[in-house]
């Protein structure tokens, strides 16, 4: 990485006897948008708070722009942050809120006004300067919070689940808006979320966290299509799991429910060992292998008619494989209890490490 801007090195955080973040390493490039994705309690917020300076790492160090900031106070770090709970100052108007950081920094009044005006136009609330936070909707408040964080031109922007308090529609539009503003200003950003859709749609890279550790770091495409661990595979997207037994390591043959499928590539596990294979629903099709190279026989289970799409569950022994087919007016949907075949390409089969 030629242009590493934020570098988190071997960071650990203990609260008493519990380790919340363990051996965390990450290099973020200038202008990059990186998400910390994981379930609650995985340490993502604690990691973000350590970057902000609200928590002190028990070990390791954090560098911003080549400067070690590990022991620097939050108000000296030159960071912008947006909180889940908006945290606008209720006694100040929108304009005063946005100008807060500039005022603290001793920027001249004229400059403050110009910057506030600019920020208000960026967040598309040009006429809201004189309102108070309680007169705004949740989405508007969060946009003001973003403007307030960005007004002093910080080196780094931290977003701590900024969308989770908002309703679904606002969440999606604000998501696009945040990303657009971030790209336009080119500001290095860390975004904490437990929502995989947010992480996948917004990020340049995602760090999937679990139990205080970074399970996998990669682009949304890599994370979704080539999950490195079982946790990543199950947390990001929907996944069909097939429990099987290795028949041959070299050929990559696996026995599932008495049927053998061949992956056409070697498997690390020895023959006779149990193994878990995973398939995304969109990688499976219904019907006689349907031009795909591999297939399994099973029984149709639940059928959900969703309009344009029909979601079908096919039982293969103890495994249930979910798949979506498009609604074809010419042919009726499959009937539960009837035998069926599913087809997929060996390329799409994920072999999960536990």
């Amino acid at each position, binding site marked *: 990485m030629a242009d590493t801007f934020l570098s988190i090195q071997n960071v650990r955080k203990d609260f008493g006897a519990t380790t919340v973040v363990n051996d965390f390493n990450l290099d973020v490039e200038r202008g990059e948008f990186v998400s910390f994705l994981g379930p609650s309690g995985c340490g993502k917020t604690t990691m973000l708070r350590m970057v*902000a*300076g*609200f928590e002190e790492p028990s070990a390791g160090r954090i560098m911003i722009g080549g400067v070690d900031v590990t022991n620097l*106070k*939050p*108000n*000296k*770090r*030159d*960071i*912008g*942050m947006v*909180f*889940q*709970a*908006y*945290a*606008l*100052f*209720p*006694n100040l108007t929108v304009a005063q809120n946005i100008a*807060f*950081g500039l005022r*603290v*920094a001793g920027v001249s009044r004229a400059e403050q006004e110009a910057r506030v005006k600019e920020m208000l136009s960026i967040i598309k609330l040009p006429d809201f300067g004189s309102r*108070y*936070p*309680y*007169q*705004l909707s*949740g989405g508007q*408040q969060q946009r003001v*919070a973003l403007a*307030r*964080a960005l007004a*002093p031109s910080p080196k780094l922007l*931290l977003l701590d689940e900024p969308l989770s*308090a908002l309703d679904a529609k606002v969440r999606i539009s604000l998501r696009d808006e945040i990303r657009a503003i971030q790209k336009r200003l080119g500001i290095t950003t860390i975004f904490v979320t437990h929502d995989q859709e947010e992480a996948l749609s917004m990020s340049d890279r995602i760090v999937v966290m679990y139990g205080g550790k970074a399970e996998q770091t990669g682009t949304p495409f890599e994370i979704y299509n080539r999950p490195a661990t079982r946790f990543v595979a199950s947390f990001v997207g929907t996944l069909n799991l097939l429990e099987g037994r290795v028949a041959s390591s070299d050929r990559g043959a696996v026995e599932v429910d008495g049927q053998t499928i061949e992956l056409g590539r070697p498997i690390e596990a020895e023959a006779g060992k149990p193994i878990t294979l995973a398939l995304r629903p969109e990688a499976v099709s219904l019907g006689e292998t349907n031009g795909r190279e591999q297939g399994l026989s099973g029984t149709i289970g639940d059928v959900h008619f969703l309009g344009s799409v029909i979601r079908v569950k096919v039982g293969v022994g103890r495994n249930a494989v979910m798949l979506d087919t498009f609604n074809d007016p010419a042919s009726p949907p499959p009937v539960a209890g009837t035998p069926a075949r599913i087809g997929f390409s060996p390329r799409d089969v994920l072999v999960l490490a536990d």
Partner: protein
Amino acid sequence: MKSSRFWAWATFTVGALYFFVPLIATLEFSLRMRRGEYSFDAYRVVFGDDRFQATFTYSVVVAILTILLGVLVVVPTAYWIRLRMPHLRPVVEFITLLPLIIPAIVIVFGYIRMYGSSSPLPFLATARGTDALLIIGYATLALPYMYRAVDTGLRTIDVRTLTEAAQILGAGWTTIISRVILPNVLIAVLSGAFLSFAIVIGEFTMASLLNRPAFGPYLQNIGANRAYEPAALAVLAFAITWACMSVIQILSRFAPKSANQPR
């Protein structure tokens, strides 16, 4: 349904009578200084008395200084307890309740022993020093009310997130307390201030034993020697208290609405 309403009104009436009859009686009595007709003579006498003006002014100044001292001590303390040491809250609450349990006379005797003219901290050696000691003593007496008022005010805002938001924007502690915390608990602080004011204006024990020319000892003096003027003073004291309450009510209309919680 009807009977419960009857009892509600009955209770209300009894309560109102209990409260208003003595007040009206006092008011009526204060107007009867001139034989055979109502007049404001008693009030005229009171307002014309130099000692009234002097002691009242003295007590108002002392009350304002007490409030300032109370705010300076209580706001940062309550804030810090909420932010960083919530486990200490029961202890601090207990300490702030002590002035209710320990009589003022005990405190003032303690002061006289501790800060006499031959002690290492001779507050009592000068009149100004004694004034300072009186203010400190009043701030102590007002502590239970002030602390509770401020603590309740802090409960209505998200202290931690607002603090962090200000911090990350570069603010230091002075800026955070003066520009973020204090304005948002101002109404609470004002109601605490009003209670402090009410306590200080009528306080007798400390002022009398420290021999300061305050309003309380003056009231006592008048009460012991005159007939109509004490009633007039009592009515005035009520009027001042109610004026303070109205001011608080009006101010609370302008209170910042707390909108920092997600809805």
